[in-house]
């Protein structure tokens, strides 16, 4: 049976609140660089309650190696790439770890890859960071992308192969900079990946943060975005497609700590197959000082077959009434049989009709990404996923059609 949460019609529901700070406020969540402050979770904690902690267990360890992945950077000519030693002052500027995997990753790494867009530079090409899984030794990795003041760049982080990776991605967007970061989780079947993305957004700076998750056994991405000065803007876009037995979790936190910043969150996912599980949690905190905040977050899930489960939990905490706008919407629906009937009544076979509907579900979001190479690859990945679901529905192997 499919469990769905439709928060668009649940404003009076106790599962999330408007204008009242609940007991589990994000403002009170422990964040720390110290491993001792954040113990290994049992799975009952708020931030782990949807997660398969047993499968993530290797990444909680204090002992994480560094050889499980190979990192290759192909940088635009204007962009600088360095390796920073642990303890470098350029690390840790984008906020503290907020959960066990994040703090474990922070403490385990010996060095970090730094991608820097120099002040006022406009990158003429996409910078690509490839992270290839090479062994299944639990591994920590750290990437910091710094867009110095008034710079502009697009950075694509691409994860493939098989790995047990606990990762930190720091994004420092300095005053007036425009940074687009796309993180693609296109892992092979056995990969387990925890990734803490922490972004600090400066005055009049803009971050477009895109997360795309297809592969892997367990993928848990926790993007935190904090505004450090007025006039900042963050657009967070996510797209995921979970198959049988996959767990894909995206937990976002946008911290409106200063006045007059804007955030937009749009995540969409499709699920198919037995025990496919997706989790989307969107926490937005508008602090008392953050007057003139404008925020909206949306999550939609499309359940294509029986036996899949989508959890969707938007949380909005508002500590000031002096805001421009704040809202959220969440809906999880089954494949719409009336849409299917309409298309089939025009002669379109069921397989093609389903394909049209799913492509349509993601279409606008893909256009929003704005990075052509990523868009093309995404469309191809969605096609490949759909081939799988068609064989589930029709009982015919894709190549036997």
């Amino acid at each position: 049976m499919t469990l769905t949460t439709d928060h668009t019609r649940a404003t009076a529901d106790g599962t999330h609140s408007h204008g009242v700070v609940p007991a589990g406020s994000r403002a009170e969540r422990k964040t720390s660089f110290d491993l001792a402050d954040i113990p290994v979770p049992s799975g009952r904690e708020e931030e782990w309650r949807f997660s398969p902690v047993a499968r993530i267990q290797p990444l909680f360890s204090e002992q994480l190696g560094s050889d499980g992945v190979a990192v290759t950077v192909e940088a635009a000519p204007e962009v600088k790439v360095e390796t920073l030693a642990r303890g470098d002052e350029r690390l840790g500027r984008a906020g503290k770890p907020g959960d066990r995997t994040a703090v474990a990753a922070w403490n385990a790494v010996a060095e970090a890859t730094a991608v820097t867009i120099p002040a006022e530079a406009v990158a003429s090409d996409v910078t690509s960071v490839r992270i290839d899984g090479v062994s299944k030794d639990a591994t920590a990795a750290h990437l910091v992308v710094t867009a110095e003041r008034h710079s502009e760049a697009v950075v694509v982080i691409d994860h493939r192969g098989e790995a047990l990776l606990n990762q930190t991605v720091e994004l420092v967007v300095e005053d007036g900079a425009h940074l687009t970061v796309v993180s693609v989780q296109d892992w092979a079947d056995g990969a387990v990946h925890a990734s803490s993305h922490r972004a600090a957004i400066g005055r009049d700076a803009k971050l477009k943060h895109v997360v795309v998750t297809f592969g892997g056994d367990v993928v848990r991405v926790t993007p935190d975005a904090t505004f450090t000065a007025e006039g900042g803007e963050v657009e967070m876009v996510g797209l995921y497609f979970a198959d049988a037995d996959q767990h894909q979790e995206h937990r976002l936190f946008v911290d409106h700590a200063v006045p007059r910043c804007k955030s937009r969150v749009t995540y969409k996912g499709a699920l198919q197959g037995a025990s496919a599980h997706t989790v989307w949690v969107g926490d937005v905190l508008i602090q008392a000082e953050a007057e003139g905040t404008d925020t909206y977050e949306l999550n939609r899930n499309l359940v294509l077959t029986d036996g899949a489960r989508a959890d969707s939990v938007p949380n909005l905490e508002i500590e000031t009434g002096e805001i421009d706008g704040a809202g959220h919407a969440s809906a999880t629906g089954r494949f719409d049989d009336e849409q299917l009937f309409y298309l089939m009544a025009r002669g379109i076979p069921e397989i093609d009709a389903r394909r049209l509907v799913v492509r349509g579900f993601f279409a606008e979001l893909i256009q929003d990404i704005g990075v052509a190479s990523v868009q093309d690859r995404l469309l191809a990945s969605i096609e490949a996923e759909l081939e799988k679901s068609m064989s589930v529905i029709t009982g015919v192997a894709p190549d036997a059609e």
Partner: protein
Amino acid sequence: MSTLEIRDLHVSVETKEGAKPILRGVDLTIKSGETHAIMGPNGSGKSTLASALAGHPKYEVTSGTVTLDGEDVLEMSVDERARAGLFLAMQYPVEVPGVSVANFLRTAKTAIDGEAPALRHWGKEVKGAMENLRIDSSFAERSVNEGFSGGEKKRHEILQMELFKPRFAILDETDSGLDVDALRVVSEGVNRAKETTDVGVLLITHYTRILRYIKPDFVHVFVDGKIAEEGGPELAERLEDEGYDRFLTAGATA
């Protein structure tokens, strides 16, 4: 020349309380080029007939036959019926977000014809048909039915009828909710299709208004799931004057 033949059709609809019989023995024969109006009060089963012919999964045919030139329509899936030449202009066209009208029309045309239409010719044909129906060219890039007004949805249905060139078109209350101008535009579209393709039309309506624009050859009055009376265009005129009361009273005493 094609023939759509409906014989002693019984149809039930799925409800929470179980299957509820709606159609109780419908007999109807439609030939190419003919226009049959099916009229009747609300709840008489007119729209059920339309949905059952198209194969909507909510409706179950419990007995009877439907054949198209001898082929068993009831054995066909929804898409097979459309490819065999049946078209249903829906009363409530469904929104399909993210699928553009242009893409939808081309995909459907390709499925129905079994091959992709020649690109240049098709583009012209779509453009011309849209102009005729006074559909703004910007609609080609909009998502199917999404944010369309009631009248725009109905014009989009008739656009498909003109482009797909079915052998038989069932128009399910296409006139409901249309203002006079939109009604005229939609009717002109149906008449163009009749002139150019010899399509047989099953026109389902509650009102006689649309019959001033689309002339029926036959009028059937639907009451309580079957045809209560049949005649020519003069029957529609009589209904215009008298309404359905006569049939409802007859039905109640029968």
